[in-house]
């Protein structure tokens, strides 16, 4: 028989009495953990996008709306392909690569998907030479200061499209298949498929990117334009800046160069997400406050009620020689276990919720963050102990003579 045993047996005497308490803490912790998980991963995703795409700019049709960077080219509107040449000819500082894209709907083996026409970088070779002319032009600005005589650090394999968002070489009747399409239709490099009434050979299947590109097929832009009968248009032009500094200056220059287009940066794209993340971070703070209040009040009330119910028992224990510390320990230990149960249970539920709903709420995959769960549990524990402190102290100061009170 120990203090622990007494508390444990007392809890299990009437588990329903503590269930409400535990539930209040559990729900609060679950909400807190779920929101924090989604917030953390959403912020990481934003950070990752800013890091990988931070220097990227999208040139879109004027009226295009923008929810997500990766599917920005699926806006259903187009702009002239000649804008690409205009950007190259303008010799703007900081333009490293251009990637014009045209998205058209297509079907492959009964599966509806998006066929994306992209221009391989090899076709820009001639255009890059255009920039030489600006060296000796009497113009106020110079072209990109970067000397392109060094080796490109990027991978020139077709699979590099997944990470670099450009492809070096892609012949007329070659296609590159997104990871999900490849898996779903069991497509492999070398296979031949029919798209929009023409035969194509699969050059490569991309590794998963976690973006809409996984569900797409990529072909040469001009072939797609021809097959879709769209004319010399593109859905979007992705401008890869060499760094964020240069990209920042590029935006107004591009806007001036292409007044009939909409120029957006990844920062603007993620602005909404940043706002949502900020809101979620504040929400998690709000939930914490609610947890403290509701959970704390619930625990304080439950422990106070428990003290009142057990007055005779407390008096008896004092008569038997229990110290005030022992008496308060009975209630603090009980509160600690309630807090621990609520905290651990809440973490499990919260993590499960986040893993399940995170991809739907924020479009990010979520994995459990053990340190976050640990912190949430500690917070729950602290709240319950603080809430139980006063009732426990009151119990320790009870008049022991209650043991002599007649029933």
């Amino acid at each position, binding site marked *: 028989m120990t203090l622990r045993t007494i508390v444990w047996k007392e809890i299990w005497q009437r588990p329903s009495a503590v269930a409400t308490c535990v539930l209040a803490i559990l729900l609060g912790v679950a909400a807190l953990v779920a929101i924090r998980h989604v917030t953390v991963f959403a912020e990481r995703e934003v950070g990752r996008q800013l890091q990988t795409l931070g220097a990227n700019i999208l040139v879109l049709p004027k009226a295009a709306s923008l929810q997500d960077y990766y599917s920005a080219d699926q806006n259903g509107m187009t702009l002239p392909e000649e804008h690409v040449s205009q950007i190259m000819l303008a010799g703007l500082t900081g333009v490293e690569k251009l990637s014009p894209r045209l998205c058209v709907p297509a079907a492959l083996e009964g599966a509806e998907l998006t066929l994306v026409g992209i221009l391989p970088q090899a076709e820009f070779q001639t255009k890059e030479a255009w920039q030489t002319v600006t060296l000796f032009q009497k113009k106020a600005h110079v072209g990109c200061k970067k000397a392109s005589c060094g080796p490109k650090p990027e991978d020139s394999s077709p699979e590099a499209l997944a990470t670099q968002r450009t492809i070096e070489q892609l012949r007329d009747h070659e296609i590159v298949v997104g990871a999900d399409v490849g898996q779903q239709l069991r497509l492999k490099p070398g296979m031949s498929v029919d798209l929009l009434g023409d035969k194509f050979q699969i050059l490569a299947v991309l590794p998963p990117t976690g973006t809409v590109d996984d569900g797409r097929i990529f072909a040469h832009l001009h072939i797609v334009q021809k097959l879709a009968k769209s004319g010399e248009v593109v859905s979007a032009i992705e401008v890869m800046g060499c760094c964020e500094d240069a990209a920042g200056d590029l935006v107004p220059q591009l806007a001036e160069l292409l007044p009939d287009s909409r120029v957006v940066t990844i920062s603007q794209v993620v602005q909404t997400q940043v706002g949502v993340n900020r809101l979620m971070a504040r929400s998690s703070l709000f939930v914490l406050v609610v947890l403290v209040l509701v959970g704390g009040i619930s625990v304080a009330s439950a422990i106070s009620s428990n003290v009142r119910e057990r007055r005779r028992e407390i008096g008896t224990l004092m008569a038997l*020689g229990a110290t005030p510390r022992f008496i308060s320990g009975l209630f603090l230990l009980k509160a600690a276990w309630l807090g621990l149960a609520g905290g651990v249970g809440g973490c499990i539920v919260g993590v499960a919720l986040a893993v399940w709903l995170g991809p739907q709420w924020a479009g990010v995959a979520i994995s459990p963050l053990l340190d976050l769960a640990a912190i949430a549990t500690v917070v729950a524990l602290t709240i319950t102990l603080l809430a139980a402190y006063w009732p426990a102290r009151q119990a320790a100061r009870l008049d022991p003579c209650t043991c002599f009170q007649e029933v």
Partner: protein
Amino acid sequence: MFRLENVSKIYSRRGSEVRALCADSLEIPTGSYVAIVGPSGSGKSTLLSMLGGMLSPTLGRVWLGDVSLYDLSVVERARLRREKIGFVFQTFNLVPYLTAVENVQIPLCLSGMPSDDQFARAAALLERVGLAERLNHRPSELSIGQQQRVALARTLANSPSVILADEPTGNLDAESRRVVLDFFDELHRDGCTIVMVTHDAIAAEKADRQLSISNGAVSPLFGEQPAKAA
């Protein structure tokens, strides 16, 4: 063993004072068996609480041996109760969610005895009071008499030298009453000091000395009684 010096306990309630106890000088020698008789509300429980170190007097001092009880701290008094005093309650005051053996283990737990030793001693005590087969029964699964015997076993757990009993036979039938009173006789013979508060005349006759308490005032019952022959 017990000595009360000009002790009084006064409660103030709603602007008026209530004198719950008044004992100018009261001595209860070591090894004596004292019955305190009085009607309900006469101050019996107040006196018992004061003797048990659980209720400090408004005036005066209470001595247990050469220790002034209320000059000790709360923790020291608790320790004193653990080591020297055993209580027997009218309503047994068993912890409802603990089994018989666990109830008896409580004082042993409070005194820091290891768990295994606690069980062994508790089981032995329950066997002594004839409840060897009821170790794992909860109080709700025991009869009134059995509950009182569990309470007795608990009282004896730490081998107290003083027993303070509050109406120990109040809720018992004749047979159970006899068992309890026989137990007290046995403890008395072993040298234990027993102070029993009761309004049961039969129980009171078992004691060596009978005191009367009325409106808080303690006085001998029918004058001083000669000590009973052992």
